[in-house]
């Protein structure tokens, strides 16, 4: 298994070396799907990279799917910006999530916050809250511990199953969130539920 930082000879996304994709049950996704299905032709924002399986899952639910890969965007802002570029917060936040308020019934954040420098936590969580319509849901994942391993992408296989796919971004976890830290960061939400998996991943299902 690759260690941080990722080897420059790492295989491209979707062609990761061993151990390859693994799947996990997701109670948070199940809850998220139920909220999505409450409205007709809901808009869903996926902050991961585009996957056929994920797009098909949401379109089968009647969704219009928006994809904006903030992982790749963060990777570019951290590791591929010219030396004369503006400060990180400015160059990252000024160019993402250009949507009107209350645009989405659901937002899938995956484990993005684990990789974000702390200066981006509050502005990004506030922006996500702004983008959700009232009653809309947000699905967030976070790791229980900071362990060496490949960067993993998530894709949806069905309403209860996620697949974890090794990918070749150079991002590394910035911190491990406690439950309390997550709920403080997303304290504006009307309700929250936490699901703890055996694979050291926690899921937060939040409703605005």
């Amino acid at each position, binding site marked *: 298994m690759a260690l941080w930082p990722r080897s*420059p*000879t*790492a295989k*491209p*996304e*979707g*062609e990761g070396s061993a151990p390859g994709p693994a799947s996990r049950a997701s109670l948070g996704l199940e809850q998220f799907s139920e909220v999505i299905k409450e409205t007709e032709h809901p*808009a869903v924002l996926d902050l991961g*990279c*585009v*996957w*056929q399986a994920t*797009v098909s899952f949401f*379109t089968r639910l009647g969704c*219009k*799917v*928006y*994809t*904006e*890969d903030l992982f*790749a*965007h963060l*990777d*570019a*802002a951290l590791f*591929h*910006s010219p030396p004369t570029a503006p400060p990180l917060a*400015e*160059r990252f*936040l*000024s*160019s*993402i*999530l*250009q949507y009107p308020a209350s645009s989405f019934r659901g937002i899938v954040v995956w484990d993005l916050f684990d990789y974000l420098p702390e200066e981006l936590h509050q*502005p990004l969580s506030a*922006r996500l809250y702004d983008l959700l319509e009232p009653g809309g849901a947000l699905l967030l994942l976070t790791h229980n511990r900071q362990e060496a391993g490949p960067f993993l992408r998530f894709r949806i296989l069905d309403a209860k199953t996620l697949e974890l796919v090794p*990918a*070749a*971004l150079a991002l590394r976890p910035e911190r491990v969130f406690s439950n309390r830290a997550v709920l403080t960061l997303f304290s504006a939400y009307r309700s929250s539920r936490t699901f703890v998996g055996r694979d050291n991943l926690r899921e937060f299902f939040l409703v605005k």
Partner: protein
Amino acid sequence: MWGNKKPPEFSSNPSSRENPSSSAAPEPRPAPEPRGARGLARLGRTLSLKGELAGNEDLALDGEFEGTVELNDASLTVGSQGRVQADIRAREIIIDGTVRGQLRATDRLMITKNGNVVGDLVAARVVIEDGAYFKGSIDIQKPGDAKPARTEGAGDSFRIAPVPVAAKDKLQ
């Protein structure tokens, strides 16, 4: 901070950054041959065109194009070297290169693993290969749901309305 200005591109294709092998200059590949008995028109990879393009025969774009494309019942293929900034309507759209714009396919829209697309997609079917880069929205509309395709001005050959190209307007 959250203004509506167009986001600056840190890189042309984040997915390619994740593929170290892509750092070497790729060998230009011609666009896959669209299937069908209709004639095939091709914009070669050294060509750059700006304007409106309409017709009813399959088209392959390997060069640069900016404007609008309306192909009604035909197929558009953007080759690996193709760079297109356009609103596109066609029966089938296959993207192996770089495209920015609003895309509507009455049948299938496909982004290959090399494809780099920023825009809003509407199609009856969408196929996205692993490794493709996409930013935008995807809306599935089956033929019965879709608004009828515009037929005005369509013919058996292409109609091109060129407009002046300023060097600074070229695709980045």
